[in-house]
């Protein structure tokens, strides 16, 4: 525990994230806030996916399911049962985790590509189910009444509140990732990634560890799903269970370096920056997907360990500061 608390990496990371979060607040800049909202959201998505993907080695294409399910549960209790934002966030997080725990008990028995395929299937099942489930509004989804924002001092204030909460969640995701990486539990996950059969022989309760990792990875996406759709004011199936976005989060982890704490953060920020600069450039606007694809291909073919992995390999001195 001492080793974790005294780690320079942990404190540098918290300070940087907190500085990023207070920057738009200090300058009172809503445009910057919206840009950073997306980046922080993707950082949390990438950090949480990294627990099951990076440490445990299970390729999950359905990470967005937790985001969508949490969002739906949260918006449902807010719009229909008139709950507040905080209880809704807790409902979203716990709902997503419980779902992951039950689902994990079934699908984590599958290995390798079969697991990856099953997660694609889960995502599409949820997408199709949400479109038919009447309490969640079917294909049109749910819309928050504008009056709800009055409780938080009007729409403008509510957006700032959502951003501040997201920033807090991102910092929690960072700390939690670091603790998991340094814990015995995290070590167990990495053994599963390297050789699951050997892990079992060594006495690691692999089904339990895998399921705990899966459940843990679902909690924060469930919460930020509520925040994101609270900010948007409505939720519909296509946006909640968007497979493309799930894969984009995967790409971010690969870009930064999987199985590290800083990798998903750097990958998410880099990817989002590259994408937004490509979209606003009139010359490259229509080609942004092509360029992102070429970039991804180049990383996979030539730097498969990602930016952070590459730096750690080349400059051993920074390893203490770049976990």
């Amino acid at each position, binding site marked *: 525990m001492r080793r974790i608390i005294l780690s320079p990496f942990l404190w540098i990371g918290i300070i940087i994230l907190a500085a990023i979060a207070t920057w738009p607040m200090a300058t009172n800049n809503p445009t910057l806030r919206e840009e950073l909202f997306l980046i922080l959201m993707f950082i949390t998505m990438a950090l949480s996916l990294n627990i099951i*993907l990076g440490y445990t*080695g299970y*390729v999950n294409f359905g990470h967005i399911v937790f985001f969508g399910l949490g969002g739906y549960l949260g918006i449902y209790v807010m719009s229909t049962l008139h709950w507040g934002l905080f209880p809704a966030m807790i409902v979203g997080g716990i709902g997503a985790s419980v779902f992951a725990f039950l689902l994990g008990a*079934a*699908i984590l*028995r*599958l290995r*390798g*590509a*079969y697991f*990856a*395929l*099953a997660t*694609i*299937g*889960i995502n*599409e*099942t949820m*997408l*199709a*189910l949400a*479109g*038919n489930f009447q309490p969640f509004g079917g*294909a049109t989804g749910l819309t928050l009444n504008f009056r709800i924002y009055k409780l938080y001092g009007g729409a403008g204030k509510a957006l700032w509140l959502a951003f501040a909460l997201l920033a807090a969640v991102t910092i929690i995701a960072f700390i939690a990732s670091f603790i998991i990486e340094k814990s015995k539990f995290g070590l167990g996950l990495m053994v599963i990634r390297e050789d699951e059969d050997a892990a079992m022989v060594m006495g690691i309760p692999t089904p339990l560890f895998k399921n705990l990792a899966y459940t843990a990875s679902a909690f924060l996406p469930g919460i930020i799903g509520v925040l994101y759709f609270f900010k948007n004011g409505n939720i519909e199936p296509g946006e909640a269970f968007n*497979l493309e976005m799930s*894969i984009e989060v*995967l*790409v971010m982890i*690969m870009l930064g370096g*999987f199985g590290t704490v800083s990798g998903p953060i750097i990958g998410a920020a880099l990817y989002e920056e590259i994408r937004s600069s490509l979209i606003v450039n009139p010359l490259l606007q*229509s*080609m*942004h*997907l*092509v*360029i*992102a*694809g*070429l970039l*991804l*291909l180049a990383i*996979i*073919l030539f730097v*498969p360990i990602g930016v952070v992995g590459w730096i750690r390999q080349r400059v051993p001195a920074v390893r203490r500061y770049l976990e």
Partner: protein
Amino acid sequence: MTINANVLIASLLDGLLIGFVYGLAAMGLTLIWGVMDVINLSHGALIVLGMFGALLAVQSWGLHPYIAFIIVSIAGLFLGVIIYYIAIRRVLEAPELTTLLSTFAVSMIIIGGGTAAFTTSPRNINFNLGTISFGGGANVLGTKLAAALLAAMVTFLLYMFLYKTRIGKSIRAVSNNRAAAELMGIPSMQILALSFGIGTLLAMGSGALIATLFPFNILSGSVYELKSFVIGVLGGLGNPIGSLLGGLILGFIEGLIPNFMDTSWTPVIEFALFVIILLVKPQGLFGSKD
């Protein structure tokens, strides 16, 4: 809801015919999976490329849609070999995630380029072969019957190629045990490239056939890619012939469900079936190489 026997038969027949084309698409995916353990996430993009290839050939060169189908298929063979050498060869031995992402990158490049060139507006190939009656009010569109026959023919040719020719046998040998095949003097790199080419040929060919049946746009591929996954799992990943049966099952389900409930429930049932089969019998209903 009352069920009309004639309507039921007609929609089942319709579903089965489309099932042949679905099966053809899935065969491309499952062949690649079987031979090199790569889940090709560019499969949907390649299907769309086949659709637009056929559209261009018909609209710009005035070719018959079935001639376009042949040309597009052959182009697919070459494109597949090129994709293999650029995006697959280097990472073949890497963990699954790597090949999943490298094929996804290919998909992004194709879809991105396609969106820039064609936008996402819907297209269709204006082509009609009239209706063919099977008596009792069970009518099917001529284009669907023709597409099913072509798909069945390609399946037969693929079967003959894999089981009766020397190269086809080499593909099956590499699929079975690459190291042993190499020891027997089979050039596995060329065989893998050829397999990826054939997989792409099947994807683009099925795209060209689907284009004669339904309207489509540059993003339609993901629907058929997911159907291919479902079929691949139904028929057994790595079992091309099982794919045809899987395709027929999926077509049957798609013909059956609208008679009993809202059409929007079809994907729910398809994907639930997909997940359940993965859990209960991951080797597929008809077995596979492992």
